[in-house]
């Protein structure tokens, strides 16, 4: 670790060349994720209204469930930010506490989303029902798969933190997973707007 040249205020995750390059690389990955989600949004928006005589979004979307999901994910993004704040104050306890809350909120979000999907399928709107619902489940499902992946990832990092404590390596991993988690909230903002709000206002 070549940390001599850095001010003591430099966060641990930025103190090694590897750390800095990994973080930069992850930003570039997030750029690719934006491109990926944009194709799913484009597909969805083109297929709005293509319900093939089946149920449409205005019949099935429920504002309360969507709002609960939105606020769970929004709050988890906030608590994830607090976790990084405590990590940079070298508080392993604070980091564990806020990352734990983040995970709980993320699991809550996932639970509501699974419930929502099952509800739609019971109401006769499944992946194969119409082009519209295919696009809906692929877009929202891809986001949900990312959240699932994020939860598993953060759990593994927590285990490593427990074993190794705060090092340039572990802080880098926590920081990068936090970028991923915030990014999922950014994607959700657009799902909330372009899928749910649009679907209910239409």
């Amino acid at each position, binding site marked *: 670790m070549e940390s001599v040249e850095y001010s003591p205020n430099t966060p641990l995750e930025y103190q090694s060349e590897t750390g*800095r390059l990994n973080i930069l690389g992850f*930003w570039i990955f997030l750029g690719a994720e934006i491109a990926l989600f944009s194709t799913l949004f*484009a597909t969805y928006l083109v297929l709005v209204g293509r319900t093939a005589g089946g149920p449409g979004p205005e019949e099935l979307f429920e504002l309360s469930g969507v709002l609960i999901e939105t606020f769970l994910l929004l709050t988890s993004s906030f608590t994830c*930010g607090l976790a990084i704040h405590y990590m940079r104050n070298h508080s392993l306890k604070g980091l564990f506490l806020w990352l734990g809350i983040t995970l709980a909120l993320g699991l809550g979000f996932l639970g509501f989303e699974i419930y929502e999907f099952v509800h739609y399928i019971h109401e006769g709107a499944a992946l194969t029902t119409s082009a519209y619902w295919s696009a809906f489940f692929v877009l929202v499902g891809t986001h949900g798969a990312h959240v699932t992946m994020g939860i598993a990832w953060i759990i593994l990092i927590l285990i490593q933190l427990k074993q190794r404590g705060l090092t340039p390596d572990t802080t880098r991993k926590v920081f990068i997973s936090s970028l991923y988690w*915030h990014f999922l909230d*950014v994607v959700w903002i657009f799902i909330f*707007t372009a899928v749910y709000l*649009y679907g209910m*206002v239409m």
Partner: protein
Amino acid sequence: MSNNEQTNSHSHFPWSHLIGFGLSIFLTLLALWVGFASDFSLRTIMIIVVILALIQAAIQLLMFMHITESDSSRIQVGTILYAVFIAVAVVAGTIWVMSFGMHNMNM
């Protein structure tokens, strides 16, 4: 874990996170109000809520993700702006191209 020599400039209360969180909630509620309680046309509503979503995304990037904090912040910001350009081109371009011949779209 020999990081005790680090004094911290981060020990102050995380105001920027709290403000970002408050703004995000406010923008979400504002989007809801525009969508359900205002008298605007569908087109106006969608333009406003998409702008609100973009502002909220910027808040996440700046206040939660600290996109500008590192030495390579210019590359990071450039990458994200380029990705946003790609996203807008893909979404707007697809809708535009596919609008030809789709006469019953509910736009």
